[in-house]
């Protein structure tokens, strides 16, 4: 029985199943939010997780990865993101019901009661600081901060991992070249975050949790933050071992685990697969299918969408705002597209021009 659960957990943690499972779970949570935001659900979740932790504690491989000093905060991250997602949706459901009945939102109710900064707020903050410090001291006494052997640039550890908060980006390296995963996409994340208040013209839902008044915004951010940031950090921390190979939580980190890489460029699919002839020498002709595909995606796509399904959005937002948002969203959308293309077709690059370090 125990072994069966461990094997099943390893199976679930496989990157594809893990990602698709997380996506389905998140979607189910947002769709069935009325039922799933009941207190019993989150209680059950934390009881089950605790039970699982107790059950798995003795396993040497699991114990090793879970008790590594730097990994403990990631467990806290996992717990708190689950909890706060639940809490936000719970308040959103309650607020939506209250708005339907014509009552003020929970936050609106709260805003009516004013208290003084001094002493009420400062007093509360003071207590919080003391409690937090006590917690931190206890934690620091129990767990020692990691300190490895002195730096040696000649010896590369395996795996070499970036600091944990960048592991989401390191996970993207599986699918994209560094210029996208490490430079362009993080740049778009920052620019995109800053652009949010200017492209979101929906005046509703300002200062309180709600789902019904801004469903697209909630879906977008839940997917972006929970699925593509936090879940990737967790994947990168707990499930990626030597050579960035995948390892289940109960699996031994074997240095010699080999994963066959048989990824193929789109140009090979087109010239060799479909036309049955060798690939042309000129890289621009060779990569024409990929260039046309991505050109269509980025250049023609927004215009077609503006005339069809996104017409009302286009009229409401205006041309510039619409195009800025569309391009940011299309870059974001490229990530899951590439991931699925890799999983299903073993696609290496849409456009592969190593001559110019230009691989997408």
């Amino acid at each position, binding site marked *: 029985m125990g072994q069966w659960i461990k094997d099943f957990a390893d199976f679930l943690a496989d990157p594809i199943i893990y990602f698709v499972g997380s996506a389905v779970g998140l979607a189910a949570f947002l769709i069935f939010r009325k039922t799933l935001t009941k207190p019993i659900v989150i209680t059950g979740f934390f009881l089950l997780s605790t039970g699982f932790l107790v059950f798995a504690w003795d396993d040497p491989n699991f114990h090793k990865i879970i008790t590594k000093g730097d990994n403990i905060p990631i467990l806290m991250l996992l717990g708190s993101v689950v909890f706060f997602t639940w809490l936000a949706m719970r308040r*959103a459901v309650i607020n939506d019901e209250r708005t339907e009945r014509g009552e003020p939102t929970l936050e609106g109710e709260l805003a009516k009661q004013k208290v003084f900064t001094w002493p009420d707020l400062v007093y509360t903050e003071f207590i919080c600081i003391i409690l937090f410090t006590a917690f931190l001291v206890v934690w620091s006494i129990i767990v020692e901060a990691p300190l490895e052997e002195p730096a040696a640039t000649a010896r590369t550890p395996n795996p070499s991992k970036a600091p944990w908060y960048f592991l989401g980006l390191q996970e993207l390296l599986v699918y994209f070249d560094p210029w996208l995963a490490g430079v362009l996409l993080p740049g778009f994340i920052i620019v995109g975050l800053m652009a*949010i208040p200017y492209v979101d013209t929906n005046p509703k839902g300002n200062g309180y949790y709600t789902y019904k008044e801004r469903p697209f915004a909630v879906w977008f951010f839940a997917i972006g933050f929970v699925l593509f940031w936090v879940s990737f950090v967790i994947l990168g921390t707990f499930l990626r071992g030597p050579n960035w190979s995948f390892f289940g939580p109960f699996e031994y980190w074997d240095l010699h685990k080999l994963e066959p890489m048989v990824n193929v460029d789109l140009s090979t699919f087109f010239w060799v697969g479909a036309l049955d002839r060798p690939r042309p020498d000129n890289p621009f002709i060779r990569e024409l299918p990929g260039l046309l595909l991505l050109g269509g995606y980025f250049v023609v796509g927004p215009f077609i969408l503006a005339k069809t399904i996104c017409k009302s959005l286009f009229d409401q937002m205006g041309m510039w705002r619409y195009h800025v948002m569309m391009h940011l969203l299309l870059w974001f959308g490229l990530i899951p597209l590439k991931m699925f293309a890799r999983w299903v077709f073993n696609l290496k690059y849409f456009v592969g021009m190593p001559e*110019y*370090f230009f691989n997408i």
Partner: protein
Amino acid sequence: MGLREHVPIGIMRELHRWAAHLMVITVWLHMYRVFLTGSYKPPREFNWNVGVILLVLTLLLSFTGYLLPWDQLAVWAITVGTNMARATPFLGHEGPGAALLSIGGLDFVHAGDDVRFGLLAGRFVGEGALLRFYVLHCVGIPLAAATLMAIHFWRVRKDGGISGPL
């Protein structure tokens, strides 16, 4: 090392590291809350932008601090992190477009002058990088972050309180 050897009760290094991790997590969760309550909408859009910059500064603070223990974990995490800069379009020597910036076989962008070199003050994570990261971690970024935090809190008050309806 001083934190471990010279300070009594020997948990200062632990306090520093765990609190730093929690700071990153807290800033992420704060952003999550502010987004889901729609608290970035006017008139708070300016403060949301200050917040995004503070988020980046928090990550940079943690990133520069990561190198300072100067152990294997530190050096290789920073190596992996800064390797990305090699691939910056036009500015990194392995980035797309960098090869175009050359005249008569003379490359303008190479491993000795690209953006990664600028970050690390060298071709690899060495003493130059240690000094640079130390100054950024202890002086540069704290000053910038403290200034922006002051603006952040001031705007919270001016814009009608934290994440509540207006």
